[in-house]
C-alpha cells in the first residue's frame, strides 16, 4: 500500500468520528461511574463544554519549550496511534494510514505521547508532576508486559504482524475471535488493558488530591484542552488495537461503537469496584497475576 492524498480526508473523517464518539463515550462512562455512586453525574455533553471552556481561557503561562510541546506530543501520540491502525476492517476509507507500519508500530507509538507528555510535565518543575511520571513509568513497565506477551502470542498464532491480517483471520464467526481461540492471551492483554487506562485500581499516577493530579498538575487552558482532546482519542485508539487483535475488529461503525464501548466499560467496571493500588502493589499484581497468563499464552501457541 502506498500513500494517496485521499487518505487525508478519510483519516480526518475517522478522527472526527472518533473525537465525537470519544467525547460522548467518556462522559457516558463518567455518568455510569456516577450512577454507581447513586449520582447523576455530568451531563452527556459536559466534555464538549469543558473543552470549549478550556480553549476559551484567556491567559496562560508557559514554563518553557518542552512544557509547551508536551501536550502537542501527547495529542500527536493519540492521533498517530489512531491513524496507524485501521479503524474499520475491510473499509479502505477507514484504514487510515496503516500502510506506514504494522502492529509493532502501533505498539511502540503508544509511548510517543506519554514520553512527550512526561517531558513537558517535567519542565514545569513541579515535583508532583515528576512524581506522577515516576509512578506512571514504573507502573507501565509491568502493566504493558502481559500485553506485549499477548501480542507476541497472537502474532505467533496468526503468523503475521499485520493488524489487517490478524483481523481477517478472526472473521467468519464469533468463535474465530482471538478471545476464543487464544483466551489466555486475551486474558493477559485485558489485565494489561486495565493498567493502561488510568482508572482505579491503577490510577495512582494521577492520584487526584494526593499529588494533585500528577503529570498535568501545571497544565491549564489550551494545553489542557489539547490533553482533553487526547484523553478522548487515545483510549479509543488503544481500544481499537485491542478490538482488532482480540475481538474480531469491526467492519461497521455501529459494531465499532459497541465493541469500543464494551471494552472501555470493562475498565470502568473494574475501576468502580476496586480501590487504588500503590505502585509497588500494582507492579507485583501484574507480575503475579497477569504475567503468568502471558507466559502461558506464549507457551501454548
Amino acid at each position, binding site marked *: 500500500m502506498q500513500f494517496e492524498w485521499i487518505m487525508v480526508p478519510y483519516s480526518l473523517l475517522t478522527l472526527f468520528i472518533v473525537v465525537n464518539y470519544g467525547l460522548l463515550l467518556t462522559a457516558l462512562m463518567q455518568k455510569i461511574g456516577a450512577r454507581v455512586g447513586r449520582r447523576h453525574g455530568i451531563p452527556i455533553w459536559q466534555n464538549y463544554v469543558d473543552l470549549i471552556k478550556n*480553549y476559551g481561557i484567556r*491567559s*496562560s*503561562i*508557559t*514554563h*518553557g519549550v*518542552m512544557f*509547551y510541546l508536551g501536550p*502537542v506530543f501527547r*495529542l*500527536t501520540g493519540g492521533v498517530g496511534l489512531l*491513524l*496507524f491502525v485501521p479503524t474499520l476492517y475491510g473499509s479502505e476509507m477507514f484504514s487510515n494510514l496503516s500502510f*506506514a*507500519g*504494522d*502492529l*509493532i*508500530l502501533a505498539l*511502540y*507509538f503508544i509511548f*510517543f505521547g506519554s*514520553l512527550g507528555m*512526561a*517531558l513537558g510535565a*517535567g519542565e514545569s*518543575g*513541579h*515535583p508532583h508532576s515528576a512524581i506522577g*511520571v*515516576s*509512578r506512571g*513509568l*514504573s507502573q*507501565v*513497565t*509491568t502493566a504493558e508486559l502481559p500485553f*506485549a506477551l499477548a501480542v*507476541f502470542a497472537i*502474532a*505467533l498464532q496468526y*503468523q*503475521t*504482524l*499485520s493488524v489487517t491480517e490478524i483481523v481477517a483471520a478472526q472473521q467468519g464467526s464469533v468463535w474465530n475471535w482471538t478471545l476464543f481461540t487464544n483466551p489466555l492471551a486475551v486474558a493477559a492483554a485485558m489485565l494489561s488493558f486495565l493498567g493502561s487506562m488510568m482508572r482505579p485500581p491503577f490510577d495512582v499516577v494521577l492520584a487526584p488530591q494526593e499529588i*494533585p493530579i500528577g503529570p498535568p498538575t*501545571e497544565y491549564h487552558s489550551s*494545553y489542557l*484542552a*489539547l490533553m482533553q482532546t487526547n484523553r478522548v482519542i487515545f483510549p479509543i485508539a488503544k481500544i481499537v488495537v485491542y478490538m482488532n487483535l482480540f475481538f474480531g475488529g469491526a467492519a461497521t461503525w455501529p459494531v465499532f461503537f459497541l465493541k469500543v464501548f464494551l471494552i472501555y466499560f470493562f475498565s470502568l467496571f473494574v475501576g468502580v469496584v476496586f480501590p487504588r493500588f500503590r*505502585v*509497588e*502493589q500494582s*507492579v*507485583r499484581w501484574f507480575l503475579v497475576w497477569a*504475567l503468568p497468563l*502471558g*507466559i502461558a499464552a506464549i*507457551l501454548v501457541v
Partner: protein
Amino acid sequence: MVSPIFIIAGSLGGAFLLGLLRDPWRGASYVISLLVLTFTTWLAGSWLWALSSGAVTPVEILTAGTQPPFAVNLRLGIAEAAMVLLINLTGLLSALYLKDTLFKQGRRAMAVLLIFSMALSGIVMTRDLFNLFVFFELTVISTGGLILLSRDPRALAAGFKYLVASQVVSILMLVGIIFAYHATGSLNLDDMAAASAALLRGGALAFFLVFIAVVAELKVFPANGWALDIYESAHPAFSALVSAAAGSASLVAIDKLLQIGGPAWMDVASIIGIVSFVGANLFALAQRVDRRLLGYSSVAQIGLILFVVGQQDILGERYLFVAGGVLLAHAVGKAGLFWLSGLVAGRDLTAWSALRGNPLLLFAFASFLALLIGLPPFPGFYAKWELVHAIAAHDHLLELALLLFGALVEAGYLYRWFGYAIKREIDHEPIAPSLYKRAVVCVAVLAGWLLAYVWGELSPHDNLLHAVPVLFALAFLALEWLPARVKNALAIAGLLGWFAFSYPAYDPLQLIFALIVLAGGALILLASFHSDGRRLGFYPSAMLMYAGLAMLIVAEDSFNFFAAWESLTIGSYFLILRGRQSEPHALSYLVFSLGGAFLILAGFALAAQGNVQFLLVSLAEVAEPLAPWVFALLAVGFMTKTAAIGLHIWLPGAHAEAETDVSPMVSGILLKAGLFGLFMLLMTMGRQELYGVDLAHVMMWIGALSALLGNLMAAFQEDAKRLLAYSSIGQMGYALFGLAMMNHLGWLMALMFVINHYIYKSMLFLSVGGVAKRTGTRAMYQMGGLITLMPLSFIAVLIGIIAMSGVPPLSGFGGRWIFYNAIMTSEYRLPMILIFVSGPIAFLYLFRLIHSIFLGQLKDEHRRVKEAPFWLVLPQMIYVVCLLVFALAPGLALRRVDAYISNFLPQGALSWEGLTITSEFGYWSPVSIMLIVGVIFVVIFAWLLFVNRRAQKVKQFNIVFAAERPYRPETTHYAWNFYAPYKKALGFLAWPVFERFWAAVTDLLHTLAELLRRIYTGNGQVYAIHLLAFVVVVYLLKEGL
C-alpha cells in the same frame, strides 16, 4: 673472534687488578670495572651477533688443552651467548646505576660485582657439573657481598639468611654431584646426559639432589623466603641483577640438568614451575612494598620460565623462542622495574605516583609492566601465545588453566600498582634526579622495544611492530610534545585515512564495524578538540585502542585477532585510567578484559591444535568433542567485553569515570569489539551443543538477563554516566540476544544495535559529559532545569532517548521492529519474556536521565552555566543528523548487510521495496512514519501556537504548590531515588549479587595471600626448614608419582 673464555678471564683479571689499586683511587677503579664489563658485554654481543647471523657455529671452549670430560669445557651457543650478553649488559648497566654506591664502597665492591657477573656467565657456559657448583658458590658469596651495597640496615640480616639457605643448598648439591660422578664416571654434563639411563636408574637420588639444589637456587616458591628478603632490602640495582641475570643463569643451569633428567624430570620442573608461578603471584596480591612485590613477581616469572623449560619436549624447536621470549621479557622488565624503584623515594606502592611528574619514566614503567605480563608487542606475548598453543595441543589443560590464572593475578596486582602510580596523591619525595640512573632505565626501555621487534621478526606470525596502525599509535609517543589539537587533527586524519585506504578490502560486515570504529572514532575525536594543553598519554592510548580495533576487524587468523584484541584492551585501559576517579574501575576493567582475553586465547589454542597459523574461518572445522568447548571459551571471552551479566561489573565504573570524550569511545565503540567477536564466532561455528544444551540458547538467556538487569540497574542510578553505562549493559544484552537467536533478522537486529548504540550512546555520553563538565557533578539530582542553559545538549539527549527507547519515528524503532520479526521465528520463547520486561524499563532510566538533568528545578549554582563547549556539541549535532538520516533511510546501511547475512542465514531476509521494508510477517515504512508523525505534530503545534499565543513565560518557582511556595530548588527538584516505589517492588532484582560474588572472589584471594604469606616468618632458620621441606616434599611426590 675473541675467545669467549675472556669473558671469564677478563672479569677475573679485572677483579684482581682492582686489588692492586690504592683504595682512594675510586675513579680509576670504577673506570676499570666499567671497561671490563663493557669488554665482556661487547664480547658476548659480538658472539651473539656472529652466531645468530650464522657466521660461526656454536663454539666449544676447551681448557687445559684437554678434551672433555677430562678437563672442564665451556660452550657458547646462541642461547648461551644471549644469556651471557644479558648478564653482562645487566651487570654493566647496574654498575652504571650503582656509580655513587660503588664510589662509596670502593674497589672491593667493584671487584665483587665483576666476579658476580663472571660467575653468572660461567654458570651459563660451563659444561661441567662441578664447575657449575663452583660458579654457583661464587655467585652465592658475591651475592653475600653485594647485598651490602644497600643502605638498608635490614639487608645484613637478609644476607645472612641467604647464606644459611645456600649452605643447605650447597651441601645437597655436593653430595649429589659426587654420587652422580660415581654413577657415571664423569663430571661432564654431556657425558652424564649420554649416560643418563644409568644415572637415572642407579643414581636417581644423586640426580635428584643436584636437580633440587639448582631448583632451590632459582628461589622457587615456597622455599624462597630469603630471596624475598634480599629483593626487598638489597640495592635495587643488585636486585635487578639477581632477578634478571642470576635468575636467567640458574635457568640455563636447570636446562642443562634437564638434558640429563629427560622427560620425567621435566614434568617435575613443570610442576614446580607452575606452582611457583601461581603461588608467588597469589602471594604478591597482598604486598604493599614495591621491591618485595617485585621479588614475588620475579619468583613467579622464574617459575613460569621453569615451566617452559619443563615443557621443552612439547615445545620442540620453538623451545628457545618461547623460553627466550619469556625470559628476556622478564629480565628486561624486572631489571627495569628494580632500577626504576631506585628512583622512587618511598617504598610503598603508592609512592610510585612520584613517577607521574616524568612522562618518560612513566612510559618506562608501562613498558616494563607490559613486558612482564606479556602484552603485545613484547616478546612475552609471542612466547605465551606459542606456549599456550603447545600445551593446549597436548591437552595439558590443568596447566593451561593455572598458567592463565596466574597470569591474570599477576596482571591484576601489577596494574593495580600502575593505577596507584597514575592516580594516587603525590605526597612523597620526588624521584631521584640522577642522570645515570635515568639513562639506565631508558636503555632498558629501548632494550625492551628492541626485543619486541626482534621477537616479532622471529615469530612465524606478522610482526606487530610492522602493522601500520600500531606504528601510527606509537608514533604519537614521539609526537607527545605537540599541542593536543594538532595531535587530534593528526589522529582524525589517520583514522579516516586508514578507513579510506582499507575501504575496498572490507566486506559489508567489516564495513559496518569499520565505519563505526574508524569514521565513528574520528567523529568522537572531534570532541577532543575541546581539550587544550598537550594531553600527555591520551593519543598514544586512544590510537592504540583504535589500532587494535582496526586490526581486529580485518584479522584473518587467530594470532592477529588476538594481538589486536590485546592492543585494544591495553589502549582502552590507559584511556579509562585517565578519568579522575577511575583507578579501581580501570583495574577491574583490565582484569576482566584480560581474563576474557585469556579465555579467548585458550579457546584459540584448543582450536588450533598446535597449528602455527590458524585461520578464523577454520573455526568452523574444529572437531566435535572440542568444538563446544572452544565455542564456550571464545563466547565467554567475547561476552566479557560486551559486559554480559555476571561479567559486567567492570563496565559501569569504567565508562562512568572515564573522561568526557573517552566515555563515548569506550562505550560507543569499544563494546562493539566483543560483538564483532561474537559475530565472527557464530558465523564460523554456528550452533554448538554441550552436554545436550544448545549454547546459543544459553547465550540467549544471558543476553536477555543482561538486558533486563542492565536496564533495571540503570533505572536506579543517581550518576548520569553510570546510568548510561548500565544502559550499555542492557543494550549489549539485546544485541547478544539478537545474535544468539541465530536467525537472519536476529543478526540484522544485532547489527542495527551496533550502529544505533554507537550513535546514541556516543551522543548521550558526550552530552551528559558536557553537562557534567559544566556543572561539575555527575549526580543527576544535583542538576536540573538546564534545558534553557544548555539547549543543544538537551536536543541531543532528547533525540538520543527517543531513538534509544525505540519509539517511532526515530531509528530505535527499526531495531525493535526487526526484533519482533526476528523472535517470530526463534525456537526459544521463554527468554523473550525477559526481553519484554526489560523493554519498558528503558523508559524509566531514559526519562530519568533527561528529566533530572534538563527539566525540573534549576539549581542556584548552575544559574550561570553555559552551553557545553563547541567541540563537544558539534559531534552531538552530527549524531542528531545521523540519527535522523538513519531513521529515514535505514536501508543505507542495512540493505547491504541484509544481503550479506543471507550468505549465512538465507531464511527470512527482508525485502526493500520503495519506502517500505517488508518481512515475512509485517511491514514498515520509515519515511511515511516520519512524515505522518511530522505532519500531525506540526498541525497540532500550529493550532496550539494559535490559541495559546500569549502565554506568559514564568520562572521556576511559579508553580502551584498547594498555596505555598517552594523552599529551595534542591528540595523542589524531585530526582533523587526517582523510582522509589519501583525499587520497593523490583529493587531486589538489582541486588548486586555479581558484584558481591566477584568481591568475594577477590577477597578470598587476598585473604589467602594475606594468611599464607605468613609462612615467610622472617626467620632464617624457618626459611632453611622450608627449603628442606621443599626437598623432602618434592622427593616424596616424585617417588609417589
